[in-house]
């Protein structure tokens, strides 16, 4: 078996080297090949680790894991799957990149984001000390009818470890994991002062108690199903957060028990990213990091591509990835929470990596655009620009302010022209996967050629 293992390592590493030489993405294929040659490659590499920290959940895995890895790097080198390849082959590829030709790991500590369904398959092979669950979104689960299976998979994974679970206490579904699991759990959550009285109806439908089935009562909402919930029929309620976050003057105050409150920078934008940051801080704390180490990690953090990523174009632009209705709604809400008028540019492609079927555009909450987003113009672009324009029309957006141009480059340029004509409004670009990279290139070129704009902008309210 050792021979097969070494063969898998060699072939995997050669594949990695080859892909790098070709300038190709090597986050998945090398691991896939290695796993085929030796299915126990994760177990053999994993047992060489001394500590592994894992992030799972429906949304925010990549950002949270990247924030966390930036913090943990203050304590020593970390193996990570930073590009978000979070299935078995992605984990294997990340491990192989830090493996010698003799099958020895060079680093002893790892931060991984792991897909919910992959977690129970790999949990027993990794020395997971802390496991964070960002959130478990019900509307996505309902869509696939897999509510119970996803929760069960996370719990099945957690139960194979002795990890401390760091859970989103504002999310009733994540809270359920804490109540069912035998592992020690700590909760993070926002302070009551940040809750809003009402939230859009469609975002919270189906918030039922998982213990008794009764409809949950909410005293306030943060976003989606996240809020101050309590079951009127049983003893299921939102726990008092062990790590409580409050946004004060564009910075995040974190209160942890009776310890002094610590104020952190916010290198990310949007309410959902604030949760990701709070989750990462709580997890880092459970790993034993000091507030200074966490702050240093936050300062060194670079926003991953397309996660409310700011470009110093003129006018300023912010790029976001959308790929499913839940994620899209989070992005739209984040943009809506940024004050002032803006230009919105939506790039929709329908290649294999995006999904050939764009039906999901009709499940996403584009009604937010006319109702709350304050977009004075909308440009729709990409291969399905016309479908997107139609979606905005039926969402109730004024059609005279829609400009439709399927060609990505001229569509984006038109958005900048409209923004400049209006005195330099910010341009928010949201794009599906295959439109994201070309959009980023266009924005990078605009940064090089245009006068840079000041980056001091109001962040989330």
């Amino acid at each position: 078996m050792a021979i097969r293992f070494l063969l898998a390592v060699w072939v995997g590493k050669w594949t990695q080297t080859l892909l790098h030489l070709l300038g190709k993405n090597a986050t998945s294929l090398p691991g896939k090949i290695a796993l085929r040659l030796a299915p126990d490659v994760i177990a053999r590499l994993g047992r060489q680790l001394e500590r592994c920290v894992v992030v799972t959940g429906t949304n925010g895995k990549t950002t949270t894991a990247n924030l966390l890895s930036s913090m943990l790097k203050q304590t020593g080198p970390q193996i990570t799957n930073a590009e978000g390849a979070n299935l078995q082959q992605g984990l294997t590829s990340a491990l192989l990149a830090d493996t010698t030709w003799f099958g020895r790991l060079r680093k002893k500590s790892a931060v991984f984001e792991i897909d919910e369904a992959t977690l129970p398959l790999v949990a027993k092979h990794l020395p997971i000390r802390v496991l964070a669950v960002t959130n478990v979104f019900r509307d996505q689960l309902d869509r696939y009818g897999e509510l119970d299976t996803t929760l069960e998979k996370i719990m099945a994974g957690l139960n194979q470890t002795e990890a401390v679970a760091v859970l989103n206490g504002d999310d009733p579904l994540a809270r359920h994991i804490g109540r069912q699991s035998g592992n020690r759990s700590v909760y993070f959550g926002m302070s009551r002062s940040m809750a809003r009285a009402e939230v859009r109806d469609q975002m919270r439908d189906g918030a039922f108690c998982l213990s008794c089935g009764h409809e949950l009562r909410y005293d306030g909402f943060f976003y989606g199903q996240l809020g101050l919930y309590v079951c009127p029929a049983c003893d299921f309620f939102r726990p008092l957060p062990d790590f409580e976050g409050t946004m004060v003057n564009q910075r995040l105050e974190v209160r942890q028990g009776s310890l002094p409150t610590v104020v952190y920078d916010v290198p990310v934008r949007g309410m959902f990213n604030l949760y990701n940051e709070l989750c990462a801080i709580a997890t880092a704390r459970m790993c034993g990091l000091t507030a200074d180490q966490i702050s240093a990690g936050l300062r060194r953090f670079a926003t991953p591509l397309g996660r409310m990523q700011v470009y110093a174009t003129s006018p300023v632009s912010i790029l976001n990835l959308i790929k499913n209705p839940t994620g899209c709604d989070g992005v739209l809400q984040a943009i809506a929470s940024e004050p002032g008028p803006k230009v919105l540019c939506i790039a929709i492609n329908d290649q294999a990596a995006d999904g050939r079927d764009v039906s999901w555009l009709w499940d996403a909450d584009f009604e937010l655009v006319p109702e709350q987003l304050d977009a004075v113009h909308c440009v729709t672009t990409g291969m399905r620009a016309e479908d997107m324009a139609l979606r905005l029309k039926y969402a109730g957006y004024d059609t005279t302010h829609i400009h439709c141009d399927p060609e990505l480059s001229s569509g984006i340029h038109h958005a900048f022209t409209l923004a400049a004509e209006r005195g330099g409004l910010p341009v928010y670009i949201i794009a599906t996967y295959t439109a994201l990279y070309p959009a980023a290139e266009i924005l990078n070129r605009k940064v090089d050629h245009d006068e840079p704009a000041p980056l001091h902008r109001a962040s989330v309210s």
Partner: protein
Amino acid sequence: MSQRLCIAHLYPDLLNLYADKGNILTLVRRLEWRGIEVEVTEVPSGSEPRLQDYHLVLLGGGSDREQALVGQTLRTKRSEWQAAVEDGLPLLAVCGGYQLLGHFYQLPDGTKVPGLELLDLETVAGSPRLIGNIAIDSPECGTIVGFENHGGRTTHRHAPLGFVRQGHGNNGQDKQEGVRYKNIVGTYIHGPLLPKNPRLADFMLGLSLAYAGINAALEPLDDRMEEAAHEAFLTRRIGG
């Protein structure tokens, strides 16, 4: 006589796999733009719709398991459904909802999930799934475009909704897609079926207004964006 068009969306909690919301939204907006009052009732799973309260019923798509559940509920009122359909109740059924209108849906293991038996139609699970962009020519509604994704092969002895220009249709064999019977429209072209096919949307609305006895004309709308999306799909996704 009520001057409000009442639409029932059946079991959105079970059958809402493919953006049925887009179809409802299209119907509602196209009535609102013409100043016709409309009310949509979402009928949740477990409860039975009072068919006499509605002028248009929408049945969406779901997975096999959910579809079987819905079938069971609906079958208890089969005779009422049959009477309503024969009386001309407009019914738009997509994917799973479409399959439910027939005698049965035969699963890969041979089990037959009984349907509502409103149509002389049956469906047998097949492999591979029939997935992709589709365009059909419909005698009543012109070209209809969209996306299909179904394992079932459906055959029936009624008129089809249209004839396949590109794509698979009912069974991938006979070049037929969907079904037309009385005021029923059944199809595998899933959401968003209606936004890009305004003629079909207005066809359903016309049937429903007549059934409701509402004396309102369907004035032409500014459909340039709808037509642009329809045409772009035909040229770029179907190829002429």
